[in-house]
């Protein structure tokens, strides 16, 4: 792979990783942080340091780099969500139609709850009223 292509790939990686969605619930365990660290450690290479990749030839490594960058960008552009779009009732389940909307609301509220808020939530979960 030419030097120009390598620089282009490195720039693409950095752009992709900066655009990666931040996870508020797990601040210490983020995929983009691990990948950025690997990029800086390996001089702009995204290949993992495993035996399967280490024993590849130079050309094969370049092709693998392109595939890694491609995978990263395809995840960011939601390729699989749009290709296998859910058109039926799966996201509005009959047993609880508000399941996913409640989940999203809960995931937004949970990181910002105070100590007393968390205790109140736990008590509410213990004393549940059957509808």
């Amino acid at each position, binding site marked *: *792979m*030419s*030097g*120009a*292509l390598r620089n*282009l790939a490195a720039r*693409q990686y950095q752009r992709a990783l900066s655009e990666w*969605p931040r*996870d508020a619930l*797990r601040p210490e*365990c*983020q*995929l983009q942080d*691990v*990948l950025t*660290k*690997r990029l800086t450690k390996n001089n702009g290479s*995204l290949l*993992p*340091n*495993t035996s*399967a*990749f280490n024993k590849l030839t130079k*050309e094969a490594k*370049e*092709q693998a780099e*392109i*595939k*890694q*960058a*491609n*995978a*990263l*960008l*395809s*995840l*960011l*552009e*939601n*390729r*699989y*969500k749009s*290709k*296998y*779009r*859910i*058109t*039926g*009732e*799966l*996201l509005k*389940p*009959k*047993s*609880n139609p508000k*399941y*996913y909307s409640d*989940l*999203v609301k809960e*995931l937004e509220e949970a990181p910002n709850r105070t100590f007393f808020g968390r205790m109140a939530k736990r008590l509410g979960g213990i004393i549940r009223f059957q509808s």
Partner: protein
Amino acid sequence: MACPSCRSGLGLLRGPAASSTLRQGLFAESTTTTTARAAALSFSQSSRTSSRRSTNLSQQQSRRIHTTRPCREGESGGGLAGGFRKLLASVAGNQSSSYIAYGATQRIYKDCAKQADYTITPEDRKAGRVKETADGEEIGTGNGSIWHQEFGLLPTFSTWAHVTMLHLYLVVVRLRCLDKDAHATWQAQLVDHFFHQAEEKMDRTHDMSSRVMRQRYLQDLFVQWRGVVLAYDEGLVKGDAVLAAAVWRNLFKGREDIDVRTLATIVSWMRNELKYLDFMEDAGLALHTTLFKSKPDAEFSVVDKLVPSLEKSGAAADVEGVAAAGEAEVKASSQKAAQKPKPTPKFKTAA
């Protein structure tokens, strides 16, 4: 002697009396055997049968010897058909369905559990040949599945548990679309099967005879299961990047040397399976032999399709193996890729 050709031979015998007595004798014989068989059935059925035969005995002398029982419609517990109806009713949330759901969920669970199964033979354990990871987990021998080979996961208990939980999660998403009661029954039974076999694996495969230790690990596994369901639900709703991060944290335990192409393949496969399950009717949960359409390696071609930004930059031409160096040649090769490529012979052929 009851077949038509034999019976026609009876008519050739001398005298009508001879044929009639013979037929009577045959009929009496068949009557006794029938009543003997009927005695083995329920009392009401046999009395009905024998009384019917005794009144019709004289009338049926001229008719064929064998008579079949008329088909009784609407009979409860009607063998295969009745079982089929009960199975479908259980998916619809019938009150007495938890016993039916047990068998159906066991079949679904076994399908999930065999995906990344592994073994540790007692001979290896006795000989002290069982290897361990850095964290102290025992490594067994995998069943050659894609999870152990292409995706680079070690055949340990936690790999098996997480691959099984991944498959169970996909089924659980579909089970949510049943009625409230049916959903509660089916999900509870499915998860029970998993934890039951998890403890069995700890005891048998890993030689963990202490119930206290097993209980502690099972509690940890339950917390992991709840975490897995939450994380994958979040990824399902929010997008591919979030789902990939969830798979990385759970299945690959957040390890540093992760292969992003593997994550993309698993995400693609999960979404494909969910779409397939979305189209499946409720009855399909009870009737299909397997709920999983394909294995993850079918998605490699989908994942390796280049994004537009990489395709434009000439990476496609580079993958075809055109020798290029420097920016100018990269631009030229991208132009060449648009035209029809002329094959350049690498070897001198005889022709």
